[in-house]
């Protein structure tokens, strides 16, 4: 029983970050009908900024928690600025253009890969422990840092869900996602909605990067693993569907955790890809259909 609880708690912790990451992917697809492979790089930029700024701030007299919060704010701000530039000078011209946006995002991936490697080097950056200690939940052990990460992810996901369902902006975003021409006929400014949707997605990636930095391996390559898992999550849940992204993220995390525990990590990775194949065969639009 204790093992099962430990595995469930682990799944929820891992799933929390996958959800934040895949929510951004699904939002961009829903609003702009494009697939953004450079999404992982915004996540990476934020994590790298945290990894660079926190040790520097802590070394200059900042308490670690304050240094982390400042570093996270810097990381999110930098990622948002880069996300804005990517949108204004790139994706703005390729809205609802799958092929064009695909080529653009692959080009951006190569460009950002090179720039990040040049600027930050290939070495893994240490981030000091922000919250020390562990917490016992029904016999399962969780580090305080992971628990805080999980809590933050749940709060952000809840806020996003409420914003999308209860506010005028959220309703406009959903309207554009369902039928952008009909939405425009109703007076919804599509271009503005597209930019807002893209920037919210960029913000989600940046927040996820800042949250994961203290508990993961921060290097310019960190985004690649999350990008693959994030895509799998949105394909399983349904491209463009917010509840689908949440379900998909939890699904991927659960398979990774239970498969890795009862078989081995490689078997778990294979199982995730088998899952995608099965879902695409049985429900081509994902478990909860496209948003």
């Amino acid at each position, binding site marked *: 029983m204790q093992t099962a609880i430990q595995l469930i708690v682990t799944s929820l912790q891992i799933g929390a970050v996958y959800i934040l990451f895949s929510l951004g992917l699904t939002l961009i697809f829903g609003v702009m009908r494009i697939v953004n492979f450079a999404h992982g790089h915004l996540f990476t930029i934020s994590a790298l900024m945290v990894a660079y700024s926190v040790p520097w701030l802590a070394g200059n007299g900042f308490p670690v928690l304050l240094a982390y919060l400042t570093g996270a704010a810097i990381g999110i701000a930098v990622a948002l600025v880069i996300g804005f530039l990517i949108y204004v000078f790139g994706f703005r011209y390729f809205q609802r253009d799958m092929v064009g946006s695909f080529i653009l995002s692959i080009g951006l991936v190569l460009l950002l890969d090179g720039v990040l490697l040049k600027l930050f080097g290939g070495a893994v950056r*240490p981030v000091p422990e922000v919250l020390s200690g562990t917490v016992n939940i029904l016999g399962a052990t969780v580090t305080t840092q992971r628990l805080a990460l999980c809590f933050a992810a749940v709060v952000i996901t809840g806020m996003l869900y409420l914003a999308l369902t209860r506010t005028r902006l959220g309703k406009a975003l959903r309207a554009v996602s369902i039928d952008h021409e009909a939405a425009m006929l109703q007076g919804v400014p599509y271009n503005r909605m597209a930019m807002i949707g893209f920037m919210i997605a960029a913000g989600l990636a940046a927040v996820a990067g800042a949250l994961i930095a203290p508990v993961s391996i921060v290097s310019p390559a960190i985004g*690649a693993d999350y990008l693959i898992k994030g895509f799998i999550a949105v394909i399983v849940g349904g491209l463009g569907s917010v509840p689908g992204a949440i379900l998909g993220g939890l699904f991927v995390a659960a398979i990774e955790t239970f498969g890795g525990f009862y078989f081995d990590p*490689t078997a778990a990775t294979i199982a995730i890809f088998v899952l995608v194949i099965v879902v695409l065969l049985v429900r081509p639009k994902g478990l909860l259909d496209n948003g």
Partner: protein
Amino acid sequence: MTFSGKLKTLALGVAVGVLGAASTAGAADIIKLGLSVPLSGSGAIWGKGSVFMCERAAKEVNEAGGVTVDGTAYTFQCIGYDNKYTAAEGTRVAQTLLNREGVKFIGGSLGTAPAQALQSLTERQGVLMFTTAWGASIKGPKFPLTFTQMNTPFEILPLLIPYVKQAHPEAKTLVMLNPNDASGQDTEAVANKVWKDTGIEILSSDFYERGTTEFQPIAARILSLNPDIVDLGAMPPADAGAVFRELASLGWDGIKVVEVGTGVDGLKATGGDAVEGVYMGAAVSFEGGEVSDHQHEVNEEARAAIGESLNTIQIGFYDAVYALKAAMEAAGSIEPREVAKALPDVTFRTFYGDEIGFYGMDNYGSRQQMKLPVIVTQVKDGKLVEAARVTPTGN
């Protein structure tokens, strides 16, 4: 065409010819050393350090007068391409180095899969290749042009594993975890046998995919087996650190080994205090009075350039340059086959400070392995400390 037009064309042709001849004459005195290394992705730090070390050794050799063969002084030039640690990119790099750059000597290749892709061309096209790849199948009499520039599990593990067992005689059980690629599988095969020969029971031996960033499920599995020893084989230091951190958070505190662990920086970056006590077999300590000024100086330059201390992989790229210089001068030729024939019999000054040669008759049936010292290191008080060093004997 008018007479003046013909004259201009002729003048242009002569100019191009002269320039071409001049550039060919200049190029003839340069020996290109091709490098197939990861320069992007999680292995980029190893690749960048390898290029740095090749260039550093080439600079030293060139400034000391270069390689003198038959009265001509040649200089070395290192040319590195990104193999992304994959066979597919390794194949592309191999074709670029051999067919476009016209390289006749590979100063180093990193990663078993890309090295095998490169070897399939080098042996056929008569190109001499150095590699850090450690599978026994990559060298031997069938591959006379291939040489290994760092210690492999065949050299490291027979010393490291008994050392760990002797230091912890109470240890009885073990869990192994390796990357799911040629490097990991080669390491696991050797380690599995040596651990069993030492009397340790192997509870589980798993593989994981490189690039993984979440190690909690793996840690939970290891904890459920409750081993005395966790051996992370050929795992990159940063990944190994993350596993040890997750294990520590779950309450496990046993004997930690990263058999071909190459350094403490990446390990500490992700593992923090949880990496205390880790044993490694492919790392170099730059702490203590026995480190020479030259080693210190090069390491500091490397730290400034790549952000981490040097490791044995990168040092192999430095040593290959000196080995090639010695063999070319001994052979009196820069033809790769002649140099390869001379290489097993020459000695050269290694970065570690000793004058060494090649061996490997027992393991590989030919002398294609650099006779490098095997160094066992351990993390103590957050620093990498040399625990034992053995210079191998044998032929």
